[in-house]
């Protein structure tokens, strides 16, 4: 139990520090690389609470695909942004206030409702990992219609991205 706490603490501290760097660093490529650390931390958390399939998917899709997409985006839109212009607005105070207020409200609500609730409170026999077989059983029986809808959505996004980003020829 102690090991779990320590692991969670380390992962959480690294994630929060990296996430802060993502939104404050001036170099866009560094922001993308810090985002990798945050996403890896999320995947580690998923594995820690026994959501193995989602953890692996997180690594494959986010770190494998989304970050590469981001790096391509940075490469293709590279301008003199980094040198002359700030990556941030000049007036950051409203954004800071909004974020802090939101944080205060959420922390207040969570502490009020879930203080001292254990993660395995509903499981007298201790927590067991949720296996990939369970996930697939549920996904392909109860959630088959959303699954098909999401596949159509992905196809639409693929075609949409090609149409939007395609260079107009002869036009």
């Amino acid at each position: 139990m102690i090991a779990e706490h320590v692991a969670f603490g380390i992962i959480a501290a690294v994630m929060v520090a990296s996430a802060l760097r993502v939104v404050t660093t001036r170099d866009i490529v560094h922001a993308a690389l810090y985002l990798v650390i945050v996403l890896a931390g999320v995947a580690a958390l998923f594995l820690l609470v026994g959501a193995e399939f989602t953890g692996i998917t997180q690594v494959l899709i986010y770190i494998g695909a989304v970050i590469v997409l981001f790096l391509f985006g940075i490469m293709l839109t590279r301008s003199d942004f980094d040198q002359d212009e700030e990556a941030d607005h000049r007036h950051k105070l409203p954004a800071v206030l909004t974020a802090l207020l939101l944080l205060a409200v959420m922390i207040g609500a969570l502490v009020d409702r879930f203080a001292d609730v254990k993660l395995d409170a509903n499981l007298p026999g201790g927590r067991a990992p949720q296996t990939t077989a369970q996930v697939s059983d549920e996904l392909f029986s109860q959630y088959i219609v959303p699954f098909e809808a999401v596949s159509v959505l992905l196809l639409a996004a693929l075609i949409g991205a090609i149409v939007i980003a395609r260079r107009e020829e002869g036009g």
Partner: protein
Amino acid sequence: MLLNEMLLLGAVLFCIGVYGVLARRNGVLVLMSIELILNAVNINLIAFGAFHDTVTGQIFALFVITVAAAEVGIGLAIVLLLYRNRRSIDLDQVDLMKG
């Protein structure tokens, strides 16, 4: 492990993401902040899935991941188009529809 540890971490990440969306001017950086927000939501889904001992949390997180991937694809295509037309991805300069 407490349920609240996961939920509070999710809340902190969410607020960092909100700050990023509000404070950043670069289109790509705003998209990255949106990814932070979506990941915070996924942490909550997984935490409640583990808490209630159901795989539904995982399945919803998978759907969120899929939709996020589609969103990044479209978002970056739009940013690319913006860059091609205006030579800049500064979101403050995108005020064509301002009244």
